């Protein structure tokens, strides 16, 4: 049994990871690793970077086609998609957030990992408000594949 089946925490080896060039461009990391009947990410993608054999299959992403627009982050009902872009020594992570209070642009929040543990400080760069608010944070690039939530 995989760890995620027991604990609900994905490990990097469970994911299809982009290479450095893709990360510089900024791409979507899809953390949807169990077959469920769902496909809005496929419909939302303007460049057809996400494909799926049938509605129950896992979404496959073609990092060459992904332009990092974030549409899939907004539509995913599982809140399972994150944008990651590496700029020099920093990583910009865009994630869905559905709690109050909302973070303020320019403020510092705590970045949390997949187990909800605080890993470092993060600067809030952008807040796109909605029922599912889309937040972009900046943090040291070594946390690019760890930080998946924030604590305001």
């Amino acid at each position, binding site marked *: 049994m995989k760890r995620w089946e027991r604990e609900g925490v994905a490990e990097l080896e469970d994911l299809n990871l982009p290479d450095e060039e893709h990360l510089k461009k900024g791409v979507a990391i899809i953390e949807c690793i169990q077959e469920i009947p*769902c496909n809005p990410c496929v419909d939302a993608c303007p460049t057809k970077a996400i494909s799926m054999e049938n509605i129950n299959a896992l979404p496959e992403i073609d990092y060459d086609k992904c332009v990092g627009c974030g549409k899939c982050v907004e539509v995913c009902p599982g809140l399972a998609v994150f944008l990651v872009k590496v700029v020099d020594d920093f990583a910009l992570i865009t994630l869905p957030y559905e709690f109050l209070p909302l973070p303020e642009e320019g403020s510092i929040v705590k970045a949390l990992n*997949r187990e909800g543990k605080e890993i470092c400080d993060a600067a809030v760069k952008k807040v796109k408000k909605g029922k599912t608010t889309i937040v972009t944070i900046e943090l040291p690039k070594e946390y690019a594949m760890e930080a998946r939530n924030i604590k305001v």
Partner: protein
Amino acid sequence: MRIEEHPILDFKRGREIYFYYNGKKIRAYEGETIAAALHATGVKVLSKSLKLERQRGFFCGIGKCSSCLMKVDGVPNVRTCITLVKDGMVVEDNDMELPEKEYPRCKFEKMECDIAIVGGGPAGLSAAIEASQYADVLIIDENHQLGGQLIKQTHKFFGSKKQRAGTRGIEIAKILEEEARKNCRVLLNTSVIGYYDRGYHFLAAVNRVDGIIYEIKAKKIIFATGAQENMLVFEGNDLPGVYGAGGVQTLMNVYGVKPGEKGIIIGAGNVGLILAYQLLQAGMEVACIVEALPKIGGYFVHAAKVRRCGIPIYTSHSIKEAYGNGSVEGAIIAKLDENWKFIEGSEKDIKCDFICLAVGLTPAIRLIAQTGATISFINEAGGWIALHNEYMETTKEGIYVAGDLANIEEASTAMIEGRIAGLHAVHTIKQIPNFEEKIREYMEELEIFRQG
């Protein structure tokens, strides 16, 4: 204990009103139930068990468990979780004594329709929308609003565009209601109390607010009465503060009232996982989710959402005991071995003021059982169900089932089942153009959805 701010929901509270609880004047808002208004002021004990007089709180929140019975304006045994509070209402502890007052004579009203639909949740509304394109449809629901359990689902649904993926359950409820109301007659606050075979299908129903008794003659009936939450056996499971997961969702997401400050959840299926996330959204704490199976039963994406908020999920664990003086103050959980026995010494004492049971649902068959349709125990479907064919018709001609009543599944499948039942029920009365094509399409959709 009221939720003032919420990231997804706006609580539009009605006019401020006052009612009396055991002589005490209590403020409430129009449009909320008696049980919700009492909870908002911190009253968790609603009734007592008959024999041992053990205190009972609210459990299911949707009128299906009877743990919230109180005396309202002199009438005993009123389900306070589905009865709206009114200005000047007198609410007292239940005592089973009928008051010595003159009861007004019941008013009777006769109604006729092609298709009667009992239950206005996702399955019932979908059946109504489909059937009302071709026939005269009457929807009967005992709640004061349509939408069934969708009205408390704040998360976005999965599926494809066609099934409104990405739309929240609460929004789906509104869309379905609007569509259904276009062509259907609707009776709310109305409980169907009996089915009779008079050579035709006949239902007796009573409006609990104005006391009218409806005698309904229908060519076909679709039952979509949903399900009730399962109880779990452990010490202290009847303490006020032990709730059904759905009951908590109703309280916080429909009425904006908190069940407590810190809870634990038993069961890591989708209901338990979603509830944990919703509790955080409503500003409460969740100490942990406990699951008896060795792995998480719900979707990984739901589990990942709660894990990254820091909520632990303990698999191969269960609850041993709930304790507290008058209401929940904590729980003892422990690890299970391969034979489902508690491992001695593995106990953890978790402080919490409420416990949510998300350990599955049982189809609510009491009414459908009256029709004479064959009822059978099918474990995979959730217990005792009315056997039905691929068109959702039971063994009794003209009697259909749909949704959780037919088979415990997701709202998405309930909606497709409703469509199938609605379409087929009409088709047996009158020819529908392209019937074969339409029904095949729905069946394929259902098939695909179930493979996931």
